[in-house]
């Protein structure tokens, strides 16, 4: 592995993010080539965490844009601060400024409310990490708009003119694949897929993120979760659920798993009534298999 990739891995590890060679390489390339990174994978595998860990590893700001249907430029890019504009006009009522001067004043940068995309472009000190979360939830129009911003990191505000990025932000996009993204957007980005972690990796994550967890308990937790993922459930537990559960078990001071404790705490990682019923039916088998 090359030194830069290893360094990224180390930096992420310091942020308690367990990164494998694939994700570290993808991040390295994304930074070296200045291209956005599209991260896909099932819910709860830590897609968003990548951006967070990257921001703290680079010691820079994380700017997050949460996508939803109907998200448009005024919420993503900028909006004028209307109350401030009104107040300013009131204060200037008696002044001799002409209409054109007043207009130029209230449509200047001081009256601009910067939304995430504009913030990311105008960040002064150093390149921020721009997280565009759940891009698959936005609609096609927004995707097209985003493509424009991501291609040259420049936006145009009619009243002010073009604003070019002072530092090119490190862009991470996440998607749960609830709909197919456009080809144009995909091709603009580097691609990375995160799957549910392997047993070893999950164990590593639990031990890193839940300090003070006993060795046997952590490995039992990881094994039960791995077994749960092979069942046909409507909502498969992600890493976040594993950690919730491990934390709960530590709080309850459970030394190891047994049928009773699992039954009491399974709400931590199963969030669906029918899933819980299905799991309970398998509970005796699972507990005998993974506990002593």
């Amino acid at each position, binding site marked *: *592995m090359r030194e830069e990739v290893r360094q990224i891995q180390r930096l992420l590890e310091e942020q308690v993010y367990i990164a494998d*060679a694939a994700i570290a390489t993808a991040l390295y390339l994304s930074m070296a080539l200045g291209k956005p990174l599209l991260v896909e994978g099932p819910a709860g595998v830590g897609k968003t965490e990548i951006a967070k860990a990257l921001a703290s590893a680079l010691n820079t700001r994380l700017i997050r844009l949460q996508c939803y249907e*109907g998200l448009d430029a005024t919420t993503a890019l900028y909006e004028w601060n209307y109350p401030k504009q009104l107040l300013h006009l009131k204060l200037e009522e008696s002044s001799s400024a002409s209409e054109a001067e*007043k207009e130029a004043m209230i449509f200047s940068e001081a009256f601009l409310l910067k939304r995430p995309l504009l913030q990311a472009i105008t960040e002064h000190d150093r390149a921020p990490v721009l997280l565009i979360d759940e891009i698959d939830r936005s609609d*096609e129009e927004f995707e097209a708009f985003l493509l424009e911003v991501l291609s040259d990191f420049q936006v145009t505000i009619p009243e002010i003119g073009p604003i070019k990025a002072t530092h090119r932000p490190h862009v991470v996009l996440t998607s749960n694949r609830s709909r197919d993204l456009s080809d144009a957007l995909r091709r603009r980005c580097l691609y990375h897929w995160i799957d549910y972690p392997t047993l070893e990796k999950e164990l590593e994550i639990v031990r890193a993120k839940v300090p003070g967890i006993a060795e046997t308990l952590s490995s039992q937790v990881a094994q039960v979760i791995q077994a749960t993922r092979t069942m046909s459930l409507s909502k498969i537990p992600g890493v976040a659920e594993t950690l919730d559960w491990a934390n709960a078990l530590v709080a309850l001071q459970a030394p190891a798993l047994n049928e009773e404790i699992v039954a009491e705490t399974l709400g931590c990682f199963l969030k669906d009534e029918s899933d819980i019923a299905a799991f309970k039916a398998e509970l005796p088998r699972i507990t005998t298999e993974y506990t002593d």
Partner: protein
Amino acid sequence: MSDLEVESVVLFCRELRAHGLSVTPAEVVTAATALRVIDMTNRDETFLSLRSILTTSIDDFQIFEEVFKRFWNQSHSPNRTAIVRTQSNSPRQSPKGLAFFLEHWGSSFSGGAQPIKVPGASDTESAATKDFSEFSNEELKEISRLARRIVRRLARKPSRRWRPVKRGHRVNLRRSLRLSLKTGGELIDLTYKERRPKRTKLFVICDVSGSMDLYSRLLLQFVYGLQNSFAKVESFVFATSLARITGELKNKTYQRALDRLSANIRGWSGGTRIGASLSMFNDQWLRRIDKRTIVIILSDGWDTGEPEKLAASLAQLKRRAGRLIWLNPLLGSADYAPVTRGMQAALPFINVFAPAHDLASLRALEPHLVL
């Protein structure tokens, strides 16, 4: 970065394309640029880097991995004659023509062994199974009315986006403020905004193969009604292959539309290959499908192609479309169960599975057509 390395990356991209991955020139350029920052002698690094550049979805990973392994094992000099082009060579059925099947519906059914039982065929008195040509003007009008009502509903739901209007309930501050400058900063003339109506698109794909003929005439009338109601409707017909008929249906009278239609889709083959037709549809039209699109497939599910192909095409469609509706005229019969292999393969991907054998069933469709 040596010329040799660049050359092998270009050849590798070509190899990927030959195996069905679409690699654009821009991506080849990115890959070549990446050579500056990666170490080509390190295989893992090359693999991970090129994968994140040259694939755009996890669906590409397997092909990528196979091609990568083969390519870089041949020490960067791939034997290009060995490139295997993946192309389906499924045997084509003999062309017989739609017209033939319009005349001989049900009397022959290529591929399937079982004869087709048409539900309600005994029930010939009802308007439902009456041939379109026997429909009274009033009944034909009812179909058109129904289609218009459905299309109107499509346009009525508000979206989350705004548009400026003269009169409304929400003030459009941006515009009003600008206007206020004329009156010295005093807000006198307010302008308003309202939710833009949701623009739902409709894609209708109608089966016109032999087994469907009794219904397809009636259903085409319905599609004609939809098409001519000032909405975003695209219509297609298929038997063993697919044709877009949006243009043909945009005619003043249904009869003219039908004439143009039969003139333009002559020379079709006989049976039904839903999977192949849908995959043709996906190839050309999938880009236009989004979450605000309703896709309606009108078919009885008798498929002479492979059900796997049908399932794969539907899965693809389902991922992009807002809703996938399958109207099966056979479903109107009490003793019909969707047990054909094609229908079985299709069911998991369908949001609404409903009958379409009479006016009542078309009417019942209305609520499903609002996203």
